[in-house]
């Protein structure tokens, strides 16, 4: 009984996996297949914008996958297919946009933020170290404190 249950579950998973990637494309060589896979992961589906066309089941994503497949089949390399899509749908279709004036802020901002964060962190560390130093007692103050403590101890006993 348990065995049948597990088999049923596996069957369901297999079914779901197939449903999520409906079309089966065959390639002449593994390089083309690799190109196709990486392209579908790097192209944005335009009607479900936070998904790439590999993950999306939207009809447009299916159409874009088919076009990608056709272009790869025709012997286009990855760059050529990406250019084809960007020419029609803008750089927006690429999850890896090219570096140019309009996209510079996208590429540079993370590094600027990282540098700023490191600078702030260093400043905070330095400030704390200085605070520690001013809080430390001088040799003479320490002696006085010990004397005071010992004198009170003598009195109470």
């Amino acid at each position, binding site marked *: 009984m348990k065995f049948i249950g597990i088999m049923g579950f596996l069957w369901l998973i297999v079914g779901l996996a197939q449903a999520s990637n409906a079309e089966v494309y065959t390639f002449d060589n593994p390089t083309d297949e690799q190109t196709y896979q990486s392209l579908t992961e790097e192209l944005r589906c335009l009607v479900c914008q936070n998904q790439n066309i590999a993950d999306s089941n939207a*009809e447009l994503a299916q*159409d874009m996958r*088919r*076009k990608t497949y056709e272009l790869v089949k025709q012997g286009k390399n990855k760059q050529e297919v990406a250019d084809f899509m960007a*020419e029609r*749908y803008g750089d*927006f279709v690429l999850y890896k946009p090219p570096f140019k004036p309009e996209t510079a802020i996208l590429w540079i901002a993370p590094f600027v933020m990282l540098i700023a964060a490191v600078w702030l962190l260093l400043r905070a560390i330095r400030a704390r170290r200085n605070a520690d130093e001013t809080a430390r007692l001088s040799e003479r103050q320490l002696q006085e404190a010990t004397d005071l403590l010992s004198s009170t101890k003598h009195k109470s006993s």
Partner: protein
Amino acid sequence: MNKALIPLILFMALAGLFLLMLSRMNDGEYNPRDVPTEFIGRAAPDFSLPALHQPERQVSPSQYQGKVWLLNVWGTWCAECWREHDFLLELAGKNIPILGLNWRDEAVDAKNMLVRLGDPFDQVAFDPNSQAVIDWGVYGAPETFLIDTKGIIREKHKGALNPTIWREKFQPYFEGES
């Protein structure tokens, strides 16, 4: 000023910015669905698709060489296309050649719609499997392209055409003609 207020002020500033952006998201350049218009000034991609009314005949953009014409992408599943239809009929009345690209549709449904609402199209190319649309950079319907006498795409409009957009973007191309 109290230092403890700084985070609050920062939060308010950010919240204000987000609110502003949210309220502007549905228009103009802040609309995430409004992908920048590409593909203007390029040669119109060719295709050869069966005619909706006579499947044995092929429809192709090359038949319009030397004309200024429109390519209108539509489908019966697209509500905006129904809304746009009256205006297309108006354009057809002015003898503007419109090649209809019927996209991802059933032939029967498409024909029924044209019978019910009237047929503004010079010809209708039937594209149930999205053969041509990706080549044209289409991702939604309706979408209208204007192609000049040399076969170059000059204008493109996403969404339903209306008199204002027509006057601003499309009309000037037809003025020299008639």
